[in-house]
């Protein structure tokens, strides 16, 4: 079973099943409202794919993915605001600016009037920020907890910055009330379906990219860096470059997810990008299995669904539950749900080794199969390492 899932055909089959589920079954079976909700969860899942790469494979605990998510989201939101103001307002100035600001569009908003610049910036800006930060941090061999804390401080500073600039970013209200998306009316259900489908295709592409990267030489190096950075350095590779590349890819995925989040959900505010949401991205990844291909996606989707169905009816209970998830999953099952089959089989083997005599007493032991060992050696790539170095 597990060997089939890891084979080329297994992955292709899984991919096809996922595509049919997301692109055919979900749009026919779900209402327009629920489809939009699923679209939002898919945005979180795209972020999770990136985190799976950077954290699960690369060992970089990035607590600041909200920043890249926010960069993509705010760039898209600025464009939508400007386009709406041009289409419906006539004056070309977004509504909230005439309320809080000087009534003029600030200079750094201007580039995002162009749809082409916006689409490029959604990818490029988060990527460049991650590149600069990654090079600055990893080249100086700042790693582990230091990197985690810096990335968290980045998320905190970003949220504070957004809240402080009320006149140009909407402050803690954020940006909302979008009416069109590149000329398409956002109220039209068929356009909502289109947005959902774009998100679903992007998710499939992200998973595909991640799978190709994981199976490449780069993927092997990334795991090697995670497990034994010094040894990789001695072999002549530069761990900083490898880590930076993975970090940039994760940031770009988060940025694209943010840009899709804005038209689907209709609002972006500092509450979606600060310290807490940035850490919340991680729990789904951890539950699903941080170092696996599909674990982060499935984990993020199920956490988002659970949150949507629980938090509105039992808000207090949901917070306790989320806290417990962090404690139990990370504390006691670091491999996530994906490690369960391995744990069970190891337990079974352990039990069989403990009582070999009892078996022999009742009946002669069956001859051991020569060709097929009862279980393949576990793939090292999916195991979570014990981070021994401080």
């Amino acid at each position, binding site marked *: 079973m597990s060997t089939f899932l890891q084979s080329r055909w297994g992955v292709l089959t899984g991919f096809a099943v996922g595509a049919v589920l997301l692109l055919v079954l979900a749009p026919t079976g779900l209402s327009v409202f629920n489809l939009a909700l699923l679209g939002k969860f898919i945005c979180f899942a795209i972020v999770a794919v990136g985190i799976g790469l950077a954290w699960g494979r690369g060992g970089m605990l990035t607590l600041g993915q909200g920043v890249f998510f926010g960069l993509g989201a705010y760039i898209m939101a600025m464009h939508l605001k400007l386009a709406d103001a041009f289409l419906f307002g006539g004056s070309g100035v977004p509504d909230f600016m005439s309320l809080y600001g000087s009534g003029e569009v600030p200079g750094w908003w201007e580039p995002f009037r162009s749809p082409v610049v916006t689409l490029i910036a959604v990818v490029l800006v988060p990527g460049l920020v991650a590149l600069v930060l990654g090079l600055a941090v990893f080249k100086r061999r700042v790693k582990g907890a230091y990197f985690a804390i*810096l990335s968290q401080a980045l998320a905190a500073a970003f949220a*504070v910055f957004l809240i402080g600039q009320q006149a140009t970013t909407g402050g803690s209200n954020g940006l909302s009330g979008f009416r069109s998306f590149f000329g398409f009316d956002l109220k039209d259900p068929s356009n909502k379906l289109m947005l959902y489908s774009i998100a679903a295709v992007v998710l499939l592409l992200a998973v595909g990219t991640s799978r190709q990267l994981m199976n490449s030489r780069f993927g092997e190096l990334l795991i090697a860096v995670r497990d034994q950075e010094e040894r990789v350095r001695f072999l002549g590779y530069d761990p900083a470059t490898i880590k930076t590349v993975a970090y940039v890819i994760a940031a770009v995925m988060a940025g694209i997810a943010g840009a899709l989040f804005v038209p689907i959900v209709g609002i972006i505010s500092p509450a979606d990008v600060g310290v807490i949401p940035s850490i919340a991205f991680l729990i789904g990844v951890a539950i699903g299995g941080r170092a696996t291909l599909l674990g982060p996606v499935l984990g993020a989707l199920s956490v988002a669904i659970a949150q949507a169905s629980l938090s509105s009816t039992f808000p207090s209970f949901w*917070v306790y539950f989320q806290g417990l998830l962090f404690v139990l999953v990370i504390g006691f099952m670091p491999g996530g749900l994906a490690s369960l089959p391995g744990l069970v089989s190891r337990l079974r083997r352990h039990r069989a080794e403990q009582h070999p005599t009892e078996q022999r007493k009742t009946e002669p032991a069956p001859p051991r199969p020569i060709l097929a060992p009862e279980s393949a050696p576990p793939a090292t790539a999916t195991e979570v390492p014990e981070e021994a170095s401080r």
Partner: protein
Amino acid sequence: MELLIGQMFAGLSLGSVLLLAALGLSLTFGQMGVINMAHGEFMMAGAYTAFVVQRSISDAGVSLLVSIPLGFLVGGLLGLVLEAVLLRRMYHRPLDTLLVTFGVAIILQQAARDIFGAPSVDVRAPAWLQGNIELLGAPIPLTRLFILLLSLLCLAGLVLVLKATPLGRRIRAAVLNRDLAETSGISTRRTDQLTFFIGSGLAGVAGVAVTLIGSTGPYLGTNYIVDAFLVVVAGGVGQIKGAVIAAFALGVLQSVFEFSTTASIGKVLILVLIVGFLQLRPQGIFSLKTRSLT
């Protein structure tokens, strides 16, 4: 001139709160590699301790003096429980402790919200701490002066424990070389527990202190935890000297930046400065000299 002195003192006062919060973090991070995100919630617990004590002792002065040791005890016991139940299983996975303690932190926040309610509560400062004194023409609030003195007192106490007691010697040995300390017959297990108790207790004291300058809410800890971690990183892990310099530098710089620009730009500038500083000294102001590669 008065304005400048006032700003400098506001910075020192912010720095002294950061120092109180960061001392405990620096201890536990340095000795065990544990990144305790619930440290801010231990502060919050200390602050609520002051609130509860004041409800039963109406005299603000007495209740403050009672709250300080009690806050230490409450914070310390919370830390002890956290260490015994969760963290001691995870010393070989330092990064994961960050996420586990984050889970503990949001549980504690929600618990405080359910027990004390979402709106913030206020603790009255005693009469002898109300008012200002003049320093070179600038008014200095007495509460802030008190916090500065309290944090210096805690610092002196901690240094005394570390340098002059058998426990301190064991702690320093465990920080320098855990394996060797264990081989020499030190029970690192016991030492870890005591370190955690002291470090978390200091967070409780910090919590009592901040009730004097602001109101107490369930999310009080989140305001300080990120900055406190930045102090630890900039100062050098496990380095008391570094934490002191970094805390006061961060406090003063932040109030100067906020004064000359805005609060939000000030935060961003601080972060840029710290990333830039780590380019020069990736291990912080001071670092342990070891023969290991990392």
